């Protein structure tokens, strides 16, 4: 069951989509929503896609069963996607459908909203109408309204919802039969940014300094809302340079700290990243990618910053790069980012993107007992005195103490090349020792990288490579291919650097044909793979118009070449 809800920015599509989705989740369905919105606050055209299945879907569909058109433009832009047996919820007082189109379900959204207390509630009316069309009772949604709004507002909205439900019921009773419910147990419904915010909170992040930038602002505001209750500090910095340097200061002084931004803000953090590398200060940076260069398409998605985060910052220093593939995994993976940052005393970059950030799904609740929160700090019992921040060790890891932690032991971090004490040096010998000390940490780090997930045939002839947020879409493509008896599999990377290459080195040479699908124009991951392993993928499937892949186009590209 697929629903498109569209209108102008400010019409409140987000609210409709969210309330509707959550009501369906509460009913026990598996729900996914994605957002497509413009970089403006009012007007233009925004829409949400809502997909409802027995099991929570992993990608939205290319066609729709229901179109909620809050204005005529929405109808014009999306009517092609609506199936012949589909239905259009619209306000007949706003526009009318062409005579030939018999899919309309005219509901006087505005008039009914006004009657319920204000035209702002037109979208609540629409929710009611959709629920009715789906043959569902309004009860779950009404409960949600009560939880969301103050009593007065909730009451008005309830009236609006019921009015919509009733009006639509008159038009077609149950137009659709819902899929069966098979979702087990209680579930949570949240989007990528919320999952990352929750993961940071649960990983003991005590300080977030950031500067607003789409699509990462959701993490920022999520955590801001938790400050008082959970004892953390969220500060809006004057710019991204301050953001990263504040986080470094906080981390050095002893709390888990992070910053979040998009590519443009990350560009301003490149110098600070290098500082984290030199001072061996733990730091987590979430980069929510959007199409560049420069301002680009601020509210769209791309995987265009992989190379940039791999090599950003002057000089050579180790870092880890992890990515968000899907909600079930990303929560634990961001926790892993915090763990690695502390354990290896280095910056860890977590790559997300607008598609991941703004896609919400119903999933089983997270298991907080799986989270790690060790700080890996020097203990009084084994402290070698005098304390030296950069003591040379076999694995390159120097015991980390905090300023103020041990009486009489000062802790000095330095951005210049330094000796074990942290003091400036210029001699060649110490320089050499310190460079290799820093880089040596890569060895143990590499062993912590998760190999990519293999989904599909264990000995694939058709090997599809992917990374990051395309996971759900590519998985669906593999399902389609396997359904037509292809020996196909997806090898999907979530830990990106140091590149875990055992599986791909085994599988790629055995495959008849290989593809790498990326949301960028130059095939950055394929390039990384070749640099690291010498392996060349046969075909790149690239999309760079700011929109997510559609699994159908992946399947078509694959079939064109096999």
């Amino acid at each position: 069951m697929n629903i498109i809800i569209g209108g102008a920015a400010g019409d409140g599509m987000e609210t409709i989509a969210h309330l509707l989705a959550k009501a369906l989740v509460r009913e026990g369905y598996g729900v996914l929503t994605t957002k497509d919105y413009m970089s403006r606050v009012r007007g233009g055209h925004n829409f949400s896609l809502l997909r409802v299945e027995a099991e929570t879907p992993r990608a939205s569909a290319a066609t729709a069963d229901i179109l909620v058109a809050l204005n005529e433009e929405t109808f014009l832009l999306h009517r092609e996607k609506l199936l012949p047996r589909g239905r259009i919820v619209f306000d007949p007082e706003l526009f009318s459908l062409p005579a030939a189109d018999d899919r309309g379900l005219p509901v006087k959204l505005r008039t009914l909203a006004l009657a319920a207390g204000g035209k702002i509630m037109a979208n609540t009316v629409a929710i009611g109408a959709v629920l009715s069309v789906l043959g569902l009772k309004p009860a779950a949604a009404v409960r949600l309204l009560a939880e969301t709004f103050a009593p007065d507002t909730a009451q008005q909205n309830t009236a609006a919802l019921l009015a919509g439900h009733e009006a639509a019921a008159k038009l077609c009773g149950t137009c659709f039969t819902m899929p069966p419910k098979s979702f087990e147990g209680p579930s949570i419904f949240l989007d990528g940014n919320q999952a990352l915010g929750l993961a940071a909170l649960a990983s003991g992040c005590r300080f977030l300094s950031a500067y607003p930038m789409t699509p990462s602002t959701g993490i920022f505001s999520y955590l801001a809302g938790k400050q008082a209750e959970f004892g953390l500090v969220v500060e809006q910095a004057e710019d991204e340079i301050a953001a990263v340097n504040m986080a470094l200061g906080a981390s050095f002084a002893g709390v888990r700290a992070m910053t979040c931004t998009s590519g443009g803000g990350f560009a301003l953090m490149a110098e600070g990243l290098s500082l984290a590398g030199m001072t061996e200060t733990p730091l987590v940076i979430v980069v929510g990618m959007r199409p560049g260069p420069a301002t680009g398409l601020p509210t769209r998605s791309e995987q265009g910053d992989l190379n940039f985060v791999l090599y950003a910052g002057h000089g050579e220093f180790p870092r880890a790069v992890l990515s968000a593939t899907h909600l079930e995994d990303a929560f634990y993976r961001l926790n892993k980012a915090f763990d690695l940052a502390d354990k290896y005393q280095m910056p860890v970059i977590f790559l997300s993107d607008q598609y991941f950030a703004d896609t919400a799904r119903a999933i089983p609740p997270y298991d907080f007992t799986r989270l790690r929160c060790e700080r890996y700090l020097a203990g009084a019992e084994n402290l070698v005195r005098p304390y030296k921040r950069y003591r040379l060790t076999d694995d390159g890891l120097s015991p980390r103490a905090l300023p103020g932690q041990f009486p009489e032991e000062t802790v000095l971090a330095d951005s210049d090349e330094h000796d074990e004490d942290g003091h400036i040096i210029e001699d060649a010998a110490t320089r050499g020792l310190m460079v290799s000390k820093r880089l040596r940490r890569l060895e143990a780090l590499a062993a912590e990288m998760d190999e990519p997930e293999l989904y599909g045939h264990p000995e694939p002839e058709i090997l599809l490579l992917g990374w990051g947020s395309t996971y759900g879409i590519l998985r669906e493509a593999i399902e389609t291919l396997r359904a037509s008896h292809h020996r196909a599999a997806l090898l999907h990377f979530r830990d990106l650097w140091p590149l875990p290459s055992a599986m791909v080195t085994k599988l790629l040479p055995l495959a008849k044909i290989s593809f790498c699908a990326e949301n960028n124009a130059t095939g950055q991951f394929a390039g990384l793979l070749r640099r690291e392993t010498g392996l060349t993928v046969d075909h790149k499937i690239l999309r760079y118009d700011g929109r997510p892949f559609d699994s159908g186009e992946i399947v078509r590209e694959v079939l064109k070449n096999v």
Partner: protein
Amino acid sequence: MCKAADYLKEETAWCPGCGNFAIRQALAEALAELCLPPHRVLMCSGIGQAAKMPHYIRVSGFNGLHGRALPPATGARVANTSLTVIVESGDGDSYGEGGNHFIHTVRRNPHLAHFVHNNQVYGLTKGQASPTSELGMKTGVQTGGVISPPLNPLALALIMGAGFVARCFSGEKEHLKETMKAALVFPGYALVDILQPCVTFNKLNTYAWYKTRVYPAEGHNTSDWMAALSLSRQWGEQIPLGIFYSVPRPTFESQLPALEGEPLALRPFSPLDVARAQDEFR
């Protein structure tokens, strides 16, 4: 009990005769007189001659990037309010590269003492103009002389709402030391702009130049903002020294509910403590 010598370490790499020596000495004495335990003092600095201070004073240190001394200092205060935080920086570091952090840190008002070694020149990079260089000063890059009027750090800090603003001269070490002590204990952001001769590159603002001009601003009411502004704008033949303004306002830290109680860095934590946070998504 506490001795200045205990706060000194390492050989310095400054030029003989540099004004930085007296600043270092004054700072060591101020720390000793306040008897602050070295490991609980955190000195953040940028890059420059002044910014080398963490290598020469025995306290904990974060010697970061050029221009970026204030943000880590703020972050450190959030992480651990039991640390005494000092920012040691040059005029280029604080007012040039780091200008944006300067104005916004003043607004934010974290409790830290900001000591700017204002030699009116870029020392470490060999003599280019800094934002405080005098009009007309010729350098290797300002070959026709400086054409942008110097930035007035004290007036700027006052306009941005600084609670503590002082001017010192490295040649007046006692006064400098006392002012440093006042800045260190002031609850909030405290700026001490220290006139510091760079004997190698600044041939205009020499010891003698400063010596004949500076005078103590006596009988000044440090809670009179307008008077402070007017003192801060005096320059030229007569340059007043002193604490021009000292009126606390709520600090950054005091307004953050999460910071009530034990320092953040010292609080135990378990992911299970926050498991309830996912309930809102049910």
